[in-house]
């Protein structure tokens, strides 16, 4: 490989390119992850004890999670809620993605996409914050529902997980829309017309023709949304309550309140494993390979 680089760029530039890439990959991508995993298997020691007799490898940090009921329930809740967020986002996004890909004219689609993208340039924190205002106890949503007579008393949207999940759907919706849009767009519209011509109703057309074709996009969207939701800190921090903590918040506490980085590393690694596991699961369910998941 080096000779291919050298042929194009000459020796000095090629060496610089390889050196820079190596520093980044090794120093920022690979080693930190490995050290983190290494940390997770070692106990929390004082600096002078590191490398000494107490410094042994064990699974004790991982066992902590499974023996701590609260942490475990939060862990499970985080995963389950992230799955729900992905599912919810999928349901909300699919119609729009389909509309943009097949129903709208190119001009309408371009405009819609522009309108979609603009909010997403805005900070995730600000967008989540704006939901905070809406969902507040004395906020506009409650005011609206009260005035319409739908409810008698204001609802506490911001306690419990529902607020967090709504916020997440809002925050990550673009990551679901675009992969699905791209996937459906590549479907030959004539196939849809053919199906309709042969008498298929819309539901069957979607189920048998469109969705199978859009599978890679749906898979990508679900994966991205799940990972963003499971690994999200901002949204639960802003929209959640002490009773509805997110797993990431537990991890944070280990670092900055509990002072046990090794424990935190173990929890973090578990989170990473869950994400990877979810990717593998989705790929199997949807029968898509790594190559299909291209952005």
């Amino acid at each position, binding site marked *: 490989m080096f000779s291919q680089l050298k042929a*194009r*760029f000459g020796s000095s530039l090629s060496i610089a390119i390889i050196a820079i890439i190596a520093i980044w990959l090794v120093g920022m991508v690979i080693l930190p992850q490995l050290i983190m995993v290494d940390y997770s298997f070692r106990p929390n020691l004082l600096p002078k004890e590191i490398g000494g007799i107490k410094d042994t490898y064990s699974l004790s940090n991982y066992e902590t999670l499974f023996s701590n009921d609260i942490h475990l329930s939060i862990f499970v809740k985080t995963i389950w809620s992230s799955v729900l967020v992905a599912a919810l986002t999928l349901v909300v996004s699919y119609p729009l993605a389909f509309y943009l890909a097949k129903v709208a004219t190119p001009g309408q689609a371009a405009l819609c996409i522009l309108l979609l993208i603009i909010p997403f340039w805005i*900070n995730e*924190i600000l967008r989540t*914050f704006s939901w905070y205002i809406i969902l507040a106890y004395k906020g506009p949503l409650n005011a609206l529902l009260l005035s319409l007579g739908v409810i008698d008393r204001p609802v506490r949207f911001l306690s419990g997980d529902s607020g967090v999940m709504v916020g997440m759907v809002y925050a990550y919706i673009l990551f679901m829309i675009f992969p699905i849009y791209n996937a459906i767009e590549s479907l030959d519209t004539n196939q849809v017309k053919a199906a309709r011509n042969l008498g298929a109703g819309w539901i069957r057309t979607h189920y048998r023709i469109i969705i199978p074709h859009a599978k890679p996009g749906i898979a990508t969207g679900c994966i991205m949304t799940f990972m963003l939701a499971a690994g999200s800190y901002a949204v639960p921090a802003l929209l959640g309550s002490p009773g509805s903590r997110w797993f990431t918040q537990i991890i944070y506490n280990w670092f900055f309140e509990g002072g046990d*980085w090794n424990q935190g590393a173990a929890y973090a690694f578990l989170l990473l494993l869950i994400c990877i596991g979810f990717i593998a699961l989705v790929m199997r369910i949807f029968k898509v390979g790594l190559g299909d998941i291209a952005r």
Partner: protein
Amino acid sequence: MKSETIMRWGVRFYIGIFFIYLFIPLIIMGAATFNNSRFPTITPWKGATLKWFEALAQDGAMWTALWTSIVVAAGVLVVAVPIGICCALFLSTVQGRGKVFLYSLMMSPLLTPGVIVGISTLIFWKGFSVSGGIMLTVIAQTTFISAYVMLMVLARLQRFDRTLENAALSLGASQWQAFRRILLPYLKPAIISAAVIAFLQSFENYNTTLFVKGYDTTLTVYIASKVRTGLTPAVNALGLIMILTTVVIAIIYELKRRKEMTQLNTK
């Protein structure tokens, strides 16, 4: 045909609701800036005011956080853009079996949850006695922002006609001269776009920054902390300014991108 019309109006209704859902929160947040109410809301409306902008301007901590964000973003620019360019150059030149693996490796920071990037950076550098702060934040953010830069530069690089480099060589240019005079000018638009995106990504980052910031605070972290403690519509004021700035940049960027796309398609 009635069911078709119902469907069509149903679709329009859905699209309408969707976009309302997308924009309403931001509009409400912006509107709440002007409400003379201690708590940011538009209900009840207690009269229009600009005092929250004033309160914002006098918030010293906010200015410090803003400055920190800018310094970090500048640092990330300086480091991540060259890394991304190198990766793009590498991937577009090299063929072979290891390539797919290396590509996946380079993309992995993008798929790793932000908190994990932050945590791993924090732990790694503790071994070198470097703790949280501006430098660590730059390093942590560079880890994944480099990958964004790589993607953007690579996209343009792959459309480059390599016979131009051969032409330069056949005219006697050295490889360095061919790179500097032919390839780099071609990449300039992509590099600038990537730099803009890198800056914005750095500015708005929260999950990763949270773990590596140490005693320093970036603007985004500052906003989040204010929401939990000491929330006043001054935060809305800041939010509104940031939103307007971002929207302007976003619109300019998108329109430029579309113009470039149409130019390329007509050639």
